[in-house]
């Protein structure tokens, strides 16, 4: 029984071994290309994941607000008339989302939504003794809010607990006010002042947030901010962060609320991430083109060098298809071996980055992982590139006239 590609495999391997230096150089070239592509993909992926985690770790994927107050014209414009008016935008007062309870239930049931949490937030002043700081006062339901920002995992001192009269502070604010867990501070919103017990300090990952955040129970904030029974926003977490924009649009179409996605709230960051992704894509494409050209040039030279051998094989009864496959297989072998070495090299580069590139605190800058799927993808891509690169030389070899090739 004939062995599949037995002839082609043996001849391809022998041809590659015969031109040893050429083969080694191009395999090293492919390995370098695959290593660059894999390493850059893993590096940028890790960087973007880390940036997103840090950004979204302290904020909701979607936030629903009451619609802005707008100035409405006193009377509709009459056709054929011109109205000259100077309209000043209305100052936005603190207002609750209408019927936020049923709305929360509706959003919770929305496809792709993982968690919803109500919040009452407004400006206030925190005081302890002589020290006072302007703060962002937020009233939350701790269990629900924990599902939005994983608050409990950010506790650096104390225990996250929000019973009536309790408060959780950002760690920088606690430091500014000189308070520790168990101390009391006064929170004032002007007409109303309340004293709260600090139960925990949290690190929200952003210094500015740590410097002004005070979390209190929902009811306490409603009372302090003069919005009894109200909620100024609903924070939403979605299953896939990249679907946030689409979910925001569908919510906007269905409910009379203002919806802001994390992408809209962080437009510059999203632009930076997109630019980074495009740049990485361009680098990968250029490297792959170089790899393809490298393999193709080596195989073109190989076809010229081996014209006589190809002629002998054709005279002995090798079909054009067999000759074609000998060279396609050489491309595939170069791609596969090069990609295997390249993946190993990428693993070394990732290890070196993690081991030697450290932040000012001595910890790795961000975690980079080489996903098996990425490695398989890179290896498959390089092998396919090898075959593609071999097409032109292989066709040239297969088209050689055996009588002429033997005479050379």
């Amino acid at each position: 029984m004939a062995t599949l590609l037995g002839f082609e495999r043996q001849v391809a391997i022998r041809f590659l071994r015969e031109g040893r230096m050429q083969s080694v150089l191009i395999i090293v070239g492919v390995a370098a290309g695959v290593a660059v592509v894999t390493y850059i993909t893993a590096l940028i992926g890790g960087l973007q994941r880390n940036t997103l985690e840090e950004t979204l770790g302290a904020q909701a994927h979607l936030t629903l607000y009451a619609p802005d107050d707008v100035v409405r014209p006193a009377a509709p414009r009459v056709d054929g008339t011109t109205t000259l008016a100077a309209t000043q935008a209305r100052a936005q007062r603190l207002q609750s989302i209408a019927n936020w309870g049923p709305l929360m239930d509706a959003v919770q049931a929305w496809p792709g939504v993982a968690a919803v949490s109500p919040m009452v937030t407004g400006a206030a002043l925190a005081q302890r003794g002589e020290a006072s700081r302007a703060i962002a006062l937020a009233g939350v339901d701790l269990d629900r809010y924990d599902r939005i920002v994983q608050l409990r995992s950010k506790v650096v001192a104390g225990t996250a607990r929000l019973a009536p009269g309790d408060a959780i502070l950002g760690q920088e604010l606690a430091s500014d006010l000189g308070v520790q867990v168990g101390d009391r501070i006064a929170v004032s919103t002007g007409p109303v002042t309340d004293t709260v017990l600090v139960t925990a300090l949290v690190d929200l990952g952003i210094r500015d947030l740590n410097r002004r955040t005070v979390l209190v129970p929902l009811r306490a904030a409603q009372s302090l901010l003069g919005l009894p029974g109200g909620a100024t926003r609903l924070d939403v977490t979605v299953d896939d962060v990249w679907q946030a924009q689409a979910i925001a649009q569908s919510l906007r179409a269905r409910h009379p609320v203002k919806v802001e996605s994390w992408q809209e709230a962080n437009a510059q960051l999203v632009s930076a991430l997109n630019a980074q992704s495009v740049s990485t894509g361009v680098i990968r494409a250029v490297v792959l083109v170089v790899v393809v050209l490298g393999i193709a040039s080596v195989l073109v030279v190989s076809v010229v060098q081996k014209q006589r051998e190809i002629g002998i094989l054709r005279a002995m009864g090798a079909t054009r298809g067999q000759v074609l496959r000998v060279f396609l297989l050489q491309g595939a072998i170069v791609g596969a071996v090069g990609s295997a070495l390249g993946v190993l090299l990428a693993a070394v580069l990732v290890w070196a980055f993690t081991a030697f590139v450290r932040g000012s605190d001595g910890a790795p800058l961000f975690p980079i992982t080489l996903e098996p799927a990425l490695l398989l993808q890179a290896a498959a891509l390089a092998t396919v590139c090898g075959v593609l690169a071999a097409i032109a030389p292989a066709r040239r070899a297969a088209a050689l006239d055996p009588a002429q090739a033997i005479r050379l």
Partner: protein
Amino acid sequence: MTGTAPAAPAPLVELADVHKRYNVGRPNEAEVLRGIDLAVGPGEFLALIGPSGSGKSTLLNILGLLEPLTSGRYRLQGEDVSTLDDAALTLRRRATLGFVFQFHHLLPAFTAEENVTLPALLRDGRVGAADRARARELLAAVGLAQAMHKRPGELSGGMQQRVAIARALVHDPPLVLADEPTGNLDRASSDEAFALLRRMHDERRTSFVVVTHDPRLAARCDRVVELVDGRVVRDEAGSGPAG
């Protein structure tokens, strides 16, 4: 009682009015073969001689299905092969023909034994134990039992030509075509290689068509065909191996 004479064996090769032109329709058009009629019977040992440019190599290429003829007819083992496409010609070459070239033309990356088992590798995609045994037997028959695992680069010219002869015969083709098989060898090696061809022919009764410049060697063939300017000008019996 009446008897009938035994029928003459059908020719292995039959060429009828074969013409070969290159660069047809161009200013440099050249007719290399001008109406060749030739029949080669099974078991013949035929020398093809003639001056340079007489069309010997072109005729050999046509016999070897390596080049198409411009007009005329070529029957190989009774089948008209003039109109076959490239794929069919390739398979016909693989099954029916063996080649020995002037410059040995072994694959340098393969050992002597691997070169001889190439036809099996081409045919089956693998080399079986029987193929290997056959290759060794032939290499031993051509005096290379000790050099089976050497690469062509490690062998002398004469040894390489013996490997090429073993390779041409390993799949028992009915016809072996040899293009100046001794042209690149010194006199001693040349005599040795030619004697080997003769011995292989005598043992197997394979048909041989040998292109040679050497009248001394041509005379030792069973039949000598001389080409001049693309025409057969002489076709007569040689003196055979004793000559």
